[in-house]
């Protein structure tokens, strides 16, 4: 190792005049914490802080049509308009919550079940793991198009299958009452694998001993799962809910790909994200959409905060 050229040695022997390069490298080493972290933080900061501040500003104006058009400061009027809007805003809040809530429950329950199936090694494990990986990496827009064909009322595979057992054809995505449920199903198909992977990692890192001890004491598999495994897994379950929940609240791709603008002609699948996108880019109502977005952001932060608190309580 060429210790003599190392800037470190220059620093150790101040008698020797350090070169400019050494000086820079000494400076870099002393300040490496921020030298390393600052560029990434600056990048994210510029791309977040400025737009967020702007969104906040727009939400207090009557901006519409073009962002460049002269706008007037109207205080909290947009928020009042939005919060008293029972036709689009509150139903969108409801759909966002329904979508996220039902999808999360299904994904965690199914995910836990599948993770338990996969927990102990078995022959053919490799193939099951491949099957789990594929939906996870598939492009959501393409997945949306795939389901559109499969759930098509006339030519779709699902109705063909139901027809075989004598169940009449369902409208699925094109039904006013069934569309949201169908999109939840798509979300469950695509993202249960992610929950499986996270929970499986958690299960694998569990120590065998508590389970073993309970077995010695004569506990059956159900008792061992509910009294030993599940409590130990709670922190991991909450991490899975947190990671999946953030993305589920913000779901956009499959909703827009399957139902298009405004979440369908009756706004069947219009969640907050789809609503805000439509206000911004289909109707150019920047002031209103900014107010919706600020409220949406507060909902997300609130949900995360609740879950993080819950996780802290569980981890103790």
């Amino acid at each position, binding site marked *: 190792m060429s210790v003599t050229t190392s800037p470190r040695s220059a620093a150790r022997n101040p008698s020797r005049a350090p070169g400019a390069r050494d000086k820079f490298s000494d400076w870099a080493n002393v300040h490496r914490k921020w030298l390393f972290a600052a560029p990434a933080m600056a990048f994210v900061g510029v791309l977040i802080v400025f737009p967020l501040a702007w969104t906040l500003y727009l939400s207090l104006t009557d901006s519409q049509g073009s*962002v460049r058009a002269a706008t007037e400061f109207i205080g909290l009027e947009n928020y009042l308009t939005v919060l008293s809007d029972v036709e689009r805003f509150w139903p969108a809040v409801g759909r966002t919550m329904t979508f996220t809530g039902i999808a999360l429950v299904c994904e965690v329950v199914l995910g836990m079940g599948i993770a338990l199936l996969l927990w102990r090694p078995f022959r053919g494990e490799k193939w099951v793991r491949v099957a789990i990986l594929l939906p996870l990496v598939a492009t959501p827009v393409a997945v949306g198009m795939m*389901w559109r064909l499969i759930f098509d009322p006339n030519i779709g595979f699902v109705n063909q299958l139901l027809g075989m057992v004598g169940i009449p054809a369902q409208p699925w995505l094109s039904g006013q009452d069934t569309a949201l449920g169908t999109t939840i199903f798509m979300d469950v198909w695509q993202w249960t694998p992610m929950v499986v*992977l996270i929970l499986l990692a958690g299960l694998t890192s569990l120590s065998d001993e508590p389970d073993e001890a309970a077995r010695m004491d004569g506990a059956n598999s159900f008792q061992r799962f509910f009294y030993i495994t599940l409590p130990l897994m709670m922190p991991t379950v909450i991490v899975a809910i947190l990671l999946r929940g953030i993305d589920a609240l913000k779901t956009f791709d499959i909703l827009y790909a399957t139902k298009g603008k405004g979440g369908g002609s009756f706004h069947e699948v219009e969640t907050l994200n789809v609503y805000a996108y439509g206000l911004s880019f289909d109707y150019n109502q920047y002031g209103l959409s900014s107010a919706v977005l600020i409220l949406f952001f507060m909902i997300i932060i609130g949900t995360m905060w609740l879950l993080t608190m819950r996780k802290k309580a569980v981890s103790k």
Partner: protein
Amino acid sequence: MTVLTPHQTATGQPQPARRRRKPLGTRAYKVFRVAALVAVVLFLIAPLAWMLMASFKTNVDIYDTAKSIIFTPTGENYANVLQRNNYFVFIFNSFWVAFVSTALSLVLGVPAAYAMSRFTMHRSALVVLMARVIPGVSLLVPWYYVFSNLKMVGGFEVLILSHMFVALPLIVYIMMSYFDSLPLELEESAQVDGLTPIGAFRRITLPLSVAGMATAGILSFIFSWNNFMFALVLSGSKTKTLPVAIFDFVSYASIDWGGLMAAATVVTIPIMIIALFTQKYIVSGMTAGATKG
């Protein structure tokens, strides 16, 4: 068979299993487990198989329920999609944007994750991770305004920047949990041997982190490849990526199902092939940080 399972002896006679513990239950459980696993695999794979089959059918066959499973495959849909609809351009666009945004995000993100891990900069990490939480639409309006004033909308730069915004938090998150798990002693002894802290990072830590960087890079590539909303607003006719191209497919009056399924397959297949070869990395990336309390 020359390969012996652990429960067989050289004579081929099954021996009483020398398991550490009893298997998870009875024979009934085993049957149930196999059945459940088969059901899970079918549930996950059947839709993809349906999409793949439809992409090889003519539109007449797609409408004919008698030809659901048995049909004469045709490559016509792919020929249409690839030639007439310029999909090679979109494939290139998607690849280029994903590749450049991943590479740049690694350059910015890996040192940042290192500093945040070693100096436990939790609050700074939170700033970067905020990017994962914020709804993309709230950023798009200001971005669109600024970038269109700079005449950048429709160029690759702005798409790459927006995808870096997705990639960077992901990379920082994965790499932080990777660096957290690397022992400090290696760097410390390298510094005792005369390396500067940055030298130790470059010559010791980075080479040891190749697996972590592969994980972060592959996931970031996939996320960028799959990204729809940013490209929907910020891409132009020359920079259109695959997800936007498929979305445009349905805005015509009647849906060309065969073509649409071929297009959907063209988007999905490359990413699935990458995923099959890098399975280990994807799994470790998806579960990064999930199990450390």
